[in-house]
């Protein structure tokens, strides 16, 4: 189970631009490195990140091998309504991890 850390404001005013941070623990092994015996360490990366706000996609990103381990993303969206933000990371093999944060909009 990958560890996830989220920073989402608990409350916001309607129309306010909010900053969101999302961090996931993942080796992001590039596939270009070699081990102590010279063997290639197989590529193991997250390829897709999506953030949905009450079901609507508000931010997405395709990850490439050059992204560092334990990637952190900072992005902004507009607080429109009270609800849930769903964060989902999917790796190259289709395995996915997700976490939900709630926000109250006044």
């Amino acid at each position, binding site marked *: 189970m990958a*560890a996830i*850390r989220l*920073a989402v404001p608990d409350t916001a005013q309607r129309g306010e631009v909010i900053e969101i*941070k999302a*961090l996931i*623990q993942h*080796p*992001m092994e590039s596939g270009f490195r070699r081990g102590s015996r010279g063997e290639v360490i197989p590529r193991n990366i997250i390829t897709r990140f999506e953030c949905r706000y009450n079901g609507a996609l508000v931010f997405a990103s395709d990850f490439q091998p050059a992204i*560092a*381990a*334990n990637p*952190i993303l900072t992005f902004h969206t507009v607080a429109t309504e009270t609800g849930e933000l769903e964060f989902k990371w999917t790796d190259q093999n289709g395995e996915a991890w997700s976490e939900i944060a709630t926000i109250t909009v006044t």
Partner: protein
Amino acid sequence: MKHVGLGLVLISMTACSRTEIAPETSIPQNELQSGYAFLTAETQALQDDAFENPGFLWVDRGERLFQSVASTEPSCLTCHENGLDGVAASFPKLDPETGELINLEGRINACRTRHQGLPPLAYESEDLLSLTAYIAHQSNGDPISVDVSGDAAPYYELGLDYFITRRGQFNLSCQQCHTENWGKQLRGDTISQGHGNGFPAYRLEWQSLGSLQRRLRDCDTGVRAEPLPYGDPTYVAVELFLAARAQGLEAESPAVRR
């Protein structure tokens, strides 16, 4: 001016402990600088932000492990319900049961085998790193303060000996870089004073949290010496020497290092 400062430090150290730090390996108290001081502003910002600092992934995990164990045995929290504030800053120390020097990792494993009926955790395993980071984090801001008197003195001497002995194909000792030449450039890097106050630390080179012993192994490998195995008593003694050498510096685990 510099010599006056050095003299005062030596006098005060002689006064408070039986074993004084050999003059050629000591850094005057007023010149002690954490590895933090040698980082770029960006890396310092990464360490300072309690959200972005990746080391907190392990601290979070350690907190969960501390509260629950996968057996009917007591959890860490059962005994240490008030937490372990400031405890990590006094390690390594003598284990009262065996009389041997143990570091924080060793103490955690001693708790597991003696009180929890659990097998010891391997060095650099996610679980041991997490527990160490969680406990070390509770000493954040506390001054490093180890006891090198009495039965600990021989361990201190062993650590000192390792620190000042030239080794490897490069024939370098720890002190040649970290006492005699700190602050100077070694290719693209500024040489730090070599303190362990930020460990376990997240190293950008590792892309992971790692123990102080992993760092020591890297230094040994860097001078092309054969690194000692994890948990080797000599490395524990080196940890004690390093802590005595950094006496008074604030603990700052989980730090971010290059």
